[in-house]
């Protein structure tokens, strides 16, 4: 196309785009709608001392309850509590960390937990899928006696204990040397959101959302660990039929992400530490190891 063609087209484009834009209408109640959305979003925990004291007491009770529950489970049902027991967190029982010494591939494996006995939204009778909050503890997720209750309300402004400061129970956590990363999830406006906390619990880092549903989608986050080292992670959602999400570098190194429960219909959150080197792509695999999706930079999304 010649420069002359461009010069001819530009004014026409400007005019046409302006004409289309002139047909755009805006809702007179948009300001109120924004205020409503702001009010409904996860609120930082700025609770009073009394609220915090109550939270500590509640935490102690929950720790005892969780300890008793764990002691009555057989080995296959044990839940790794990571110091913050929760009946809704899909904790894994084991972390199989394998480093190959004679190959260039290092694989860190964290399998999706299937041992949580209560409160996995959307899974089993104990789960309470929440159309709005997903894993909103206000709906009974943290109350052992209220398993299966469906939460429909916004999270509490002050977080009860064992929840993050956005008022939600983490749905997946990943701990390593120098960090404990946690994700909380919720839905709004047709999107699935994730809040990222780390390198310690309650240390909010960032948030992102993806339209519901995605096949495999991820995003990178970098945190300064408590060990003063920089740690990089990918996190996002994958379809519920995925058994593993791998973060793969151009050099063939890979890290297996930790998957959370099916917090929303057909969608599981995940987070994994970035392996050393330049990340080339993310891939999701089914229980047989078959490749489901392969997504690459710059979008880190799609694959189906």
């Amino acid at each position, binding site marked *: *196309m010649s420069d002359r063609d461009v010069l001819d087209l530009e004014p026409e*484009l400007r005019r046409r785009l302006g004409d289309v*834009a002139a047909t755009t209408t805006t809702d007179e109640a*948009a*300001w109120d709608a*924004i205020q409503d*959305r702001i009010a409904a979003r996860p609120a930082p925990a700025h609770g009073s001392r009394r609220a915090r004291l109550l939270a500590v007491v509640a935490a102690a009770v929950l720790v005892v309850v969780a300890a008793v529950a764990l002691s009555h489970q057989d080995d296959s049902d044990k839940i790794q509590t990571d110091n913050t027991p929760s009946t809704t967190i899909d904790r894994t029982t084991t972390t199989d960390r394998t480093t190959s010494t004679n190959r260039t591939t290092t694989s860190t494996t964290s399998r999706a937990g299937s041992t949580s006995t209560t409160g996995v939204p959307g899974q089993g009778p104990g789960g309470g899928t929440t159309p709005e909050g997903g894993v909103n503890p206000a709906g009974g997720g943290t109350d052992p006696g209220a398993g299966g209750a469906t939460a429909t309300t916004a999270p509490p402004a002050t977080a009860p204990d064992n929840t993050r400061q956005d008022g939600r129970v983490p749905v997946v956590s990943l701990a390593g040397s120098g960090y404990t990363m946690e994700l909380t999830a919720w839905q709004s406006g047709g999107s699935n959101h994730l809040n990222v906390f780390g390198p310690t619990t309650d240390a909010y880092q960032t948030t992102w959302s993806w339209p519901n549903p995605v096949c495999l989608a991820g995003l990178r986050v970098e945190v300064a660990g408590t060990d003063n080292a920089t740690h990089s992670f990918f996190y996002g959602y994958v379809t519920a039929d995925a058994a593993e999400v791998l973060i793969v570098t151009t050099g063939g190194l890979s890290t297996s992400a930790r998957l959370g429960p099916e917090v929303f219909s057909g969608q599981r959150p995940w987070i994994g530490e970035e392996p050393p080197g330049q990340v080339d792509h993310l891939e999701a695999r089914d229980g047989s190891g078959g490749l489901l999706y392969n997504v690459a930079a*710059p979008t880190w999304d799609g694959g189906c």
Partner: protein
Amino acid sequence: MGLEAADRIEAVDVGPALVAPAPPSAASRSFEDVYRDDYARMVRVAHLLTGSNETAEDIVQDAFVKLYDRFDTLGDVSGYLYRAVVNSCWNRHRHLKVVERLQHLTVPATVAGVSEIDETLSALRILAPRRRAVVVLRYYADLRLEEIAQILGCRLGTVKSALHRALAELKEAIPR
């Protein structure tokens, strides 16, 4: 997703990065001021990018909610809004493709030629998302190519290339 790498928009967190030179008054504007100044313009941009007025409002309202949490840390809120809106429009585009795939739905073809408005929207729709964004930001929002590159998170050369290709495609689609 079947898109060329050059046509993808990086799905990066719309963090506190400055994406365009901050206007002198940016720091002194209140959140409500920003709404008053930018809301309608952002909806129009999103309308051009998505082809849907309703979707555009939803996206821009969501962008304002995200903005609210970072408002005190941003130097250029308009640049942030552009970036958030463009990324959300791109996400919405991908979402439609995923839904179509998962639910085996067929998105009905748009009837073109009903009016010049429809014709223009149809012409925009044939463009890959990045090219569409470049065209809208350049010829409607009247942004400089450097600003567009920052908003889209890509290099200036990529913007120039996308614009050139977009114009070549539009030349065929828009009768003059």
